[in-house]
């Protein structure tokens, strides 16, 4: 029973490890991150099969052990010896680790206490437990010394500074590799109805929930303005729209997206927004801001 129990425990632990690694691996593979129910059902099914496999394995081992023991017993009888079952390595190990007085001899360590029929034995503290306790105490002392007396390891704010500095270096390296993207800014940007860029922009628009303020079809709602009409609060045309998306209008609730996405993504979504002009949203919001025509029209040609 005890064996079965530890096996069950083992299965439980490895099962959770399995589930975890599965979750980890699946993440980059599914950037949309919508883990479907079938994904989890499959994982659960695999887990159940795994448990069953372990159970079968254990049962087989036990049967094998039993047969072996019977065989040994027969041999011993045939040889005319009394059969003494050998202690398994596990039994020997636990005996050593726990240093327990065997059940048969427990009368020798009875405390003589009797509380409503409950008696108490005076077994030693299990050596493994005792040493484990000592080790954790020593570990605790070392931890405090390392972090607070010798300052050998970074505390949380130092850790943070290092993390940010590393990211910054990585970003600079990346920018150096992509001069074209780095050069993107509103002064030189020109709109063209490039279907590929607009398609990517549409994804950016959806993924970042721009629709929560501007409507999923760009028609606006009581939060944000309509993006399909030629009226603009902060200027129309690719240069202004790109600028508004990149730096935001923070006091009015428009975030500075340039801080949260790559400059190419900003360009893509700006292109997508411009491509919306003239489309027919379901519930268009009344125009806000000033009519803007010249540049957009010219560019669109």
């Amino acid at each position: 029973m005890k064996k079965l129990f530890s096996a069950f425990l083992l299965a439980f632990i490895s099962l959770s490890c399995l589930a975890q690694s599965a979750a980890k691996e699946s993440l980059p593979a599914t950037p949309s991150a919508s883990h479907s129910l079938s994904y989890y059902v499959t994982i659960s099914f695999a887990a159940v099969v795994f448990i069953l496999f372990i159970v079968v394995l254990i049962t087989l081992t036990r049967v094998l052990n039993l047969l072996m023991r019977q065989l040994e017993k027969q041999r011993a009888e045939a040889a005319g010896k009394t059969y003494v079952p050998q202690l398994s390595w596990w039994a020997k190990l636990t005996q050593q680790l726990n240093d327990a007085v065997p059940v048969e001899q427990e009368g020798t360590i009875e405390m003589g206490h009797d509380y409503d029929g409950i008696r108490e034995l005076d077994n030693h503290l299990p050596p493994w437990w005792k040493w484990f306790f000592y080790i954790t105490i020593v570990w605790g002392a070392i931890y405090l010394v390392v972090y607070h007396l010798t300052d050998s390891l970074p505390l949380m704010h130092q850790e943070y500074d290092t993390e940010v500095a590393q990211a910054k270096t990585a970003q600079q390296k990346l920018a150096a590799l992509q001069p074209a993207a780095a050069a993107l800014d509103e002064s030189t940007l020109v709109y063209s109805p490039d279907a590929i860029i607009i398609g990517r922009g549409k994804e950016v628009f959806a993924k970042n929930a721009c629709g929560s303020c501007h409507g999923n079809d760009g028609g606006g709602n009581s939060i944000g303005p309509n993006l399909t009409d030629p009226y603009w609060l902060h200027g129309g045309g690719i240069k202004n729209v790109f600028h508004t998306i990149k730096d935001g209008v923070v006091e009015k609730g428009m975030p500075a997206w340039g801080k949260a996405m790559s400059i190419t993504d900003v360009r893509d979504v700006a292109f997508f927004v411009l491509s919306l002009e003239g489309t027919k949203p379901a519930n268009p919001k009344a125009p806000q801001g000033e009519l803007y025509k010249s540049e957009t029209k010219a560019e669109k040609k």
Partner: protein
Amino acid sequence: MELQKFYYDNKIVKAFYIATVVFGLVGMLVGLTAAIQLFYPIFNFNLQYTTFGRIRPLHTNAIIFAFVGNAIFGAVYYSLQRLLKTRMFSDLLSWVHFWGWQLIILAAAITLPLGFTTSKEYAELEWPIDIAITIVWVIFGINMIGTILRRRERHMYVAIWFYLATFVTVAVLHIVNSFEIPVTFFKSYSWYAGVQDALVQWWYGHNAVAFFLTTPFLGMMYYYLPKAANRPVYSYKLSIIHFWSLIFIYIWAGPHHLLYTSLPDWAQSLGTVFSIMLIAPSWGGALNGLMTLRGAWDRVREDPVLKFIVVAITAYSMAVLEGPLLSLKNVNAITHFTDWIVAHVHLGALGWNGFLVFAVLYWTIPRMWNTTLYSKKMANAHFWLGTLGIIFYALPMYVSGLTQSLMWKEFNADGFLVYKNFLETTVAILPLHMLRAIGGSLYLTGFILMTYNLIKTAYAGKFIANEEAQAAPLAKEYVATSGGWHYRVLENKPILFTVLSLVAILIGGIVEMVPTFLIKSNVPTISSVKPYSPLELHGRDIYIREGCVGCHTQMVRPFRSETERYGEYSKAGEFVYDHPFLWGSKRTGPDLARVGGKYSNSWHYNHLLAPDAVSTGSIMPSYPWLFEQTINLDLTAGKINALRKIGVPYAENYEATANEDLKKQATEITSSLKADGIETPSDAEIVAVIAYLQRLGKDIKAEKVAEQP
């Protein structure tokens, strides 16, 4: 010596056990409702009284204080009498204790859905109820210690040590954490602010787990396990060592709930190291329990009571290893604020507490009714349903916690967050939330089966209200026998024992709290941080009332993934006027510490009215009542006065003019909403909530502006 005849009081035990079962059912049903709301938000029926924020504390309080609480009292009253060979000290006190506790539960069941809450986890009940708890708890203590003083057994068994430690520690925890200044009969502000409030709260919260869910249960294990297995306790030495080390070390570990927050580093480190040192003392109890079963493992297969106990102890051993591992900085960085913690606590609650209570009930009820269990088969079915329930609950939550955390932290090659939109990470784990609800339902089904089984058992037998027993009285002279110094010196001196346990549990708390309160460098001040305006204060109180803190944290941790998503990490000085602190412990929704100015007023208006319409797929409930209910201006002055008394620097006589400021700020918001085509009365609660949300994180931005020129 002549034997004396006396009677054990079973009637009080029966009352506590009936309450245990009834509140277990209620608490789990509320839990299941909350679980369903997390993937199907309309399951609150659009009522304010059943929204997640209000019923989550109802669930936790019902399970901890009603279900587990009544079970503890029942088990203590049953075992204490028998271990000391005497009836309870006073029947009157027993019944005052019983009815007092049930009235407190009733008060909680009424006030929590109404939104009367302090917002401090597991200490949500408002100040009049806090006082009632203190009184009833002291009555319990007097009754218990009185019984010990009238004992016929010279020495106290290990179970009683744990009961005594439970009594003194819970009293200290409850009183210190409940220091609050009343505003009205159902509204108060925590005495402590910000970082200090957080430290006190998690010293309390962590040790509520230790001294309400652990030590009394170890005491129960020490009585019921050897009784049910009919085996001697494995090691008396181990009992002594693990008892003292457990209660001494446990109290220090509270700050592990606040790793990577604005709590000073030294306090965080103490939380970590003491958590690791706690593994062995915790395992000591489990070890002593499991080793006691040596020579009885064949019976574990047959006896449902032993089966429940074994799984309970196993769940305990796993949870007390997992907890310290979660206190390691690198693990905590991943798991904190996620579903992992939900899995962890439920492994403890469903496995350790639930299963041990079931074992106790299955063992005691047939004995008190002088019969045998109605159906062993049904008890076995309950065992398997419960075990499956735990697995189906915990595994999906582990996966869910890890999935969400990895998504929060994932950067793309350009150095930007892959999942900028928090909602994506919420939607990804909804299927796992569904699986969790299935796990919970399985567990609840088992519980219902047990209820039926126990009722049938009781009907089949005859209740023994007063159980006859005999024992010799204590001799006047104490003749010291062997049994070790602990036995001779301490175990026959209940008062000394209680005082020593009190000393043991006070040390950790004092070392951590006193410096945090007295040394200024622990909470560096930020000059731009100002008290809340009256309107924001009303908004904050509504935020507290609605239990927003149940799903939204206000603590940006110092990780790049968090500062990219939310803004600058939180500083200790930002919270100096936060009575109570609202850091939260779980991010079902995004952090709000820096939400001020991030969205427009109209965004918040629309979002609170219909979250799903603004953020498609959101599982946040809608709050239509905020648009109908109005702010109570009569309370403004009382709030200002109360806060000034505990150190918030409102100018003298400000309460007289506060409402003018309030109206001015409200009009600013309503006119900004009007510009977006939204008409709303300026005294609607939503205006106050918007004012509060727009304030969050603004102070520190103001400092930046001031520094620049």
